[in-house]
């Protein structure tokens, strides 16, 4: 069981959280103006890297708040958690973290 560091509640069991896909993917400012390709990009295409990735998570059975995390998709290590609306922290690929 991983422990995830909710920015509001601190370390809690992984099972209290739900995953919400890639972070920093804003809703298009003017959806009507998008081409089919741009609309497809926004709806269906998300990064799927091997390594670090910024994601949205929600502390579903805790404070129920959304937050962002930088996580390693191979070791699953959470390198950082940070509040929604703040930029992605700059984390070197081999920095320690919380498992």
């Amino acid at each position, binding site marked *: 069981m991983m422990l995830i560091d909710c920015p509001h509640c601190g370390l809690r069991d992984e*099972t209290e959280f739900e*995953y919400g896909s890639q972070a920093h993917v804003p809703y298009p400012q003017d959806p009507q103006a998008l081409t089919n390709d741009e609309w497809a990009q926004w709806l*269906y295409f998300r990064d799927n*890297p091997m390594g670090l990735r910024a994601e949205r998570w929600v502390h579903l059975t805790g404070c129920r708040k959304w937050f962002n995390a930088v996580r390693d*998709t*191979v070791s699953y290590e959470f390198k950082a958690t940070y509040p929604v609306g703040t930029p992605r922290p700059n984390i070197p690929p081999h920095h320690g973290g919380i498992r």
Partner: protein
Amino acid sequence: MADLLPEHPDFLWRNPRLKSSYDVVIVGAGGHGLATAYYLAKEHGITNVAVIDKGWLGGGNMARNTTIIRSNYMLDKSTRFFDRSLQMWEGLDEELEYDFLFSQRGLITLAHTDAEVRESIRRVESNVLNGADAEWLTPQEVKELLPIVNISDAIRHPVMGATYQARAAIAKHDHVAWAYARKASAMGVDIIQNTEVTGFLKDGDKVIGVETTRGNIATEKVGIAVAGHSSLLAEKAGFQVPIQSRTLQALVSELFEPVHPMILTSHHIHVYVSQAHKGELVMGANTDPYTAYGARGGFHTIERQLAAAVELVPIFARAHLIRVWGGVVDISPDSTPIIGKTPVEGIYINCGWGSGGFKGTPIGGYTLAHTIAHDEPHEYNKHFGLDRYYTGHLVDEHSASGVLH
């Protein structure tokens, strides 16, 4: 039943030297890559083909799956596609002249809520209209077919009925990979293991070769069938696939006398279980929820699935968990595979099978081979192209049935 397995020759396929050019290079020697090479040779006479794998043949998801083969999907397009695959399975061991213990033992899919009962009955009707066999069973009929199931009202998720597909099957997955490899190799296909494809050589928007850990290969046609690694290879080739890679886990118990002669699934509480020919109970769960390349999942996922299994089949409580493993599965937005052309001329892709692509091995290979040979999709995969995400013509099996594997 283990004595039914065929005697093994020392080598089932040749181990040739990698040539500097091929008519077609297939990346990934899983079920889909090997089947593609086989159908290229058999159906299209294209035998100057290499199948290249970074590991050993059939060592990816092909080695890790729980081998459920069924065609009771919801949408017309998917049911027809998967039923065609099931029809191909029905003669495949004879065609490949190799036994892989294909066993049509029937699949019971339990319904536990009113909504599930309605959805299941609707799916049965839809399956029948599409020519796939399907029946609705009452709880008593479930009990008669499979006495080990607990149909008592006094459990957390009582059985309210089930769909039944009698033609559904399991098979020995490794042997399926070997059977395709053996025939493809005999027709001239080179199977090259322990060789990673690291990049692509292009002339503008056209592929002219692949880069590998053993040097470059010239080719004008490439088929990519790498499951959970599709995004990484597509990126190297210069296009995108709408895939998320996730962990799917499965497990086995120790060996038992035959107690469970069928396949039992519950989508509501997420467990599916069959008993392999050797005697172990083989079980799988839902995918772990997040993007992952580690081929490891959370133990709580396993715990949940075991709890569900023990509730539905109380005698399983005595079984011991022997082995748990994970695979990196390729989840598409509509839970339908992607088989077709890509934005790069000469590159074709087969991916997006998620947690259920073993059953699609024959049809996936057959349609990818056709698409490569003709530069056009076959009737069976014409709705399954990458372009559907741009036109909006999704084959949204996920919303339609929510059924996995």
